[in-house]
């Protein structure tokens, strides 16, 4: 490995480096970056280590949103009292990433920035209506999380911009959520497929719903058609089962080393069905 | 009577303390003064002829102390545990038979220099049509992996008359079973260090086979056995995979050529590409029993794909034949086991030596028969289980204890507890 190492201490120093230096690669947890560098899949000229920037750390509540800074590790998310209380679906996803070692190193910003279709944190954030704040020397821009993914490993981000904050909507009364993952083994598995569900009920009617799946398309996706069909219907097993069947039809996964497209379709249905069921149980609406 | 200190007692592992303290020395932990690092250039094609190899540019790289090709191997340039059929370094004009065949080895002052110098070696290869399927490889006109043909060994066990017996069986089942290739993935990748002291070559390495290593080093360096010492370092797992040669001969060659200590540590990727695997095996079985479920005859054809080199292949295929009937009494057998060369990765020893593979076949056959005649999987097994004073397929008389009935009974008890059913 051959690169110039930069270690900014604040955002101003970061922007000076990013704008004044050739090709820069941002380094957060390093659990993906270092693997790619060691295998020489990428050979960065400049490594900009973000870990010295305190502004990129911490979890801060703000009204009906939680601000999760990009350097927050999966372990911090998993053990954060406020996330466990107000946005537990993210903690549930973080707890299933990699291994304890990887969770202590890998960050939420990295999980997004890496733009893997199989990122575990992303579906959980998507169902909490997450926004991403991108900052650059020119100022700040807020985007829907869903809109920043362009393809595997590709992020819609302008040169000089860095992810500076992730905003996730907290869970309110009558709202429940769940994250589910299927991997080849229990630990250290890249998801064959993953998904999350957020559900809001009024009595026994579905008032609102968000469903997101990972590893079934080049980017993480929302199942808008299924969501639309669900809104206004009764929250019950049959409806959830039908939603799962619909999910199976709308996803267009591929065959790859981890799984076949056919298997992914089948599991999509199971994730949507079980996700909806679990989310409702968590509201207290469906007896176990 | 002297009290026995070991048998029947719980004994603490002799080197456990060093291991928990982290002071046990594995090969990669050893460092020597003025030590060089070894790296290998390997083929990335499965079948071909090495037309030319030019190492001049690599030799000229600052910090490179030696670049060796097949011409630089003073001895046999051939290794192998049962038969020597694998080149230590493929010589110009000779055949490449798999991905990962060694084309050149380098010793340099750092691993990075060695890696960069590898890229400067110019290689010309004439590609040949490879063969990956052992059944294709057995056919006439198939690409020949070795001059002597692709059928490396055939083992037959014939007892009684299966044809005649099948016609008298109450039930006969047939099936084809396949197992996949498997990597040992011992957690310590291969590593070693070699140093010439006086006229003796010392090689410290992780290995399961130091005596064989010594023999192979001596034969390929063309020196007497007394001039080679192999010291097994603490070894981080082997499971059969460290019975074959990996870094040993290459290190000895490099240490001799440079007159400096040379260390080589495989990356995980190199370990997987260069070293042996578990044989993938195809098993065609036909088994018959009487109305009570007593086995009467078994016929099977077993084809083990040993890949590009024999390694322990003939031994593995023999064990497949010997254990083809499993732990059951079968009076009539016709067993044929082939060991076949292909251009796949070399397969060798791996926990069980072919026996786990055939277990898939004979156990499936027993289940199929039990279903057909309407008894339980447990019943058919306990009825046919070998017991003392019975004979195996090869007519070996089992004079002492045989553990299978006890095992079956214990498994039944446990299964009934766990699954809350009666078997």
């Amino acid at each position, binding site marked *: *490995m*051959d*690169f*110039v*190492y930069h*270690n900014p201490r604040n955002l101003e120093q970061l922007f000076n480096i990013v704008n004044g230096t050739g090709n820069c690669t941002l*380094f957060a947890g*390093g*659990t993906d970056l*270092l*693997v790619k560098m*060691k*295998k020489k899949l990428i050979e960065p000229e400049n*490594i900009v*280590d973000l*870990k010295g920037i305190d502004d990129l750390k911490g979890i801060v509540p703000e009204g009906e949103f939680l601000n999760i800074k990009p350097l927050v590790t999966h*372990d911090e998310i998993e053990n954060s009292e406020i996330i466990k209380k107000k946005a537990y679906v993210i903690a549930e996803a973080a707890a299933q990433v*990699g*291994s*304890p*070692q*990887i969770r*202590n*190193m890998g960050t939420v910003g990295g999980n997004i920035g890496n733009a893997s279709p199989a990122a575990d944190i992303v579906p959980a954030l998507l169902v909490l209506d997450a926004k991403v704040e991108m900052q650059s020397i020119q100022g700040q821009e807020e985007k829907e999380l869903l809109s920043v993914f362009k393809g595997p490993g590709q992020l819609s981000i302008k040169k000089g911009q860095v992810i500076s904050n992730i905003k996730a909507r907290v869970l309110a009364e009558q709202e429940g959520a769940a994250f589910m993952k299927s991997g080849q083994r*229990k*630990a*250290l598995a890249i998801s064959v497929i993953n998904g999350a569900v957020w559900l809001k009920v009024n009595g026994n009617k579905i008032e609102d719903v968000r469903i997101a799946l990972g590893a079934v398309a080049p980017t993480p996706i929302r199942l808008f058609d299924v969501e639309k069909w669900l809104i206004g219907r009764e929250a019950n097993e049959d409806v959830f089962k039908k939603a799962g069947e619909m999910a199976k039809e709308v996803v267009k996964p591929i065959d790859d080393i981890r799984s076949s497209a056919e298997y992914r379709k089948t599991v999509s249905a199971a994730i949507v069905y079980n996700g909806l069921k679990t989310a409702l149980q968590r509201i207290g609406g469906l007896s176990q | 009577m002297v009290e026995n200190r070991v048998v029947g007692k*719980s004994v*603490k*592992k002799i*080197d*456990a*303390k*060093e*291991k*928990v*303290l*982290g*002071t*046990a*020395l*594995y090969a*990669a*932990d050893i*460092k020597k003064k003025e030590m060089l690092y070894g790296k290998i250039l390997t083929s990335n094609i499965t079948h071909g002829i090495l037309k030319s190899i030019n190492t001049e540019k690599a030799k000229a790289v600052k910090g490179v102390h030696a670049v060796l090709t097949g011409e630089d191997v003073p001895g046999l340039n051939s290794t192998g545990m049962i038969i020597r059929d694998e080149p230590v370094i493929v010589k110009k004009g000779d055949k490449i038979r798999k991905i990962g065949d060694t084309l050149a080895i380098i010793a340099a002052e750092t691993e990075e220099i060695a890696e960069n110098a590898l890229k400067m070696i110019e290689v010309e290869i004439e590609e040949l049509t490879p063969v990956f399927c052992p059944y294709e490889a057995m056919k006439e006109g198939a690409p020949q992996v070795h001059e002597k043909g692709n059928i490396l060994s055939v083992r037959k066990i014939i007892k009684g008359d299966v044809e005649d017996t099948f016609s008298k069986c109450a039930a006969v089942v047939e099936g084809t079973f396949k197992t996949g290739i498997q990597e*040992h*993935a*011992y*957690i*310590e*990748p291969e590593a070693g260090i070699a140093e010439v002291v006086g006229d003796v070559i010392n090689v410290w390495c992780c290995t399961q086979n130091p005596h064989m290593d010594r023999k192979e080093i001596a034969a390929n360096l063309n020196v007497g056995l007394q001039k080679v010492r192999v010291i097994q370092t*603490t*070894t*981080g*797992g082997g*499971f059969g995979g460290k019975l074959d040669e990996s870094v040993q001969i290459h290190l000895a060659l490099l240490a001799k050529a440079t007159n400096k200590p040379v260390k080589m*540590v495989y*990356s*995980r990727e190199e370990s997987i590409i260069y070293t042996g695997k578990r044989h993938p095996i195809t098993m065609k079985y036909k088994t018959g029993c009487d109305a009570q479920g007593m086995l009467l005859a078994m016929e099977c054809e077993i084809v083990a794909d040993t890949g590009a080199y024999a390694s322990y292949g003939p031994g593995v295929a023999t064990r497949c034949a010997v254990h083809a009937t499993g732990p059951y009494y079968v009076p009539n057998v016709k067993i044929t086991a082939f060991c076949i060369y292909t251009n796949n990765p070399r397969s060798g020893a791996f926990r069980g030596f072919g026996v786990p593979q055939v277990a898939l076949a004979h156990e499936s056959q027993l289940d199929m028969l039990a279903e057909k005649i309407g008894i339980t999987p447990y019943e058919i097994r306990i009825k046919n289980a070998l017991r003392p004073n019975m004979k195996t397929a090869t007519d070996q008389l089992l004079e002492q204890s045989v553990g299978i009935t006890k095992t079956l009974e214990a498994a039944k008890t446990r299964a009934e507890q766990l699954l809350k059913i009666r078997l």
Partner: protein
Amino acid sequence: MNTINISFKLNGKDMKMEIKPQLLLLDMLREELGLTGTKNGCGEGDCGACTVLFDGKPICSCLALAVNADGHEITTVEGLGSEEKLDPLQQAFIDEGAVQCGFCTPGMLLSAKALLNKNNDPSDAEIKRAISGNLCRCTGYTKIVKAIKKAAKMKEV
């Protein structure tokens, strides 16, 4: 080549090093400091043989840059116990037969140490989760779990 000065705590002792920024934490420990108890098994964060504690938490030293140790505390297997005074975990691993080839042992011990530091009465499930990033290819998990459970109940040896 540029170098960077870092200071950190290693196994309880203050350290100062001048290193290349490209240096991996694993390589600093093994090659520069001679602490070869930390192993390299896969080099990509899958096997856990290179596990060290970073401010008390297990990380893969093969995926960390040495510069990131600056201002932090690193614990390796060499910092757990000594020939004269083993850590209860080390003693329990010996007593329970939880050591086979031993290559995963240092990483396994450190993951277990991190667990016991925050939980002195872990369940089997908690232990299994804590060591889920450490592969034992000899497959001696049952004894490892038993040893960790035993160590949790042991006072200083």
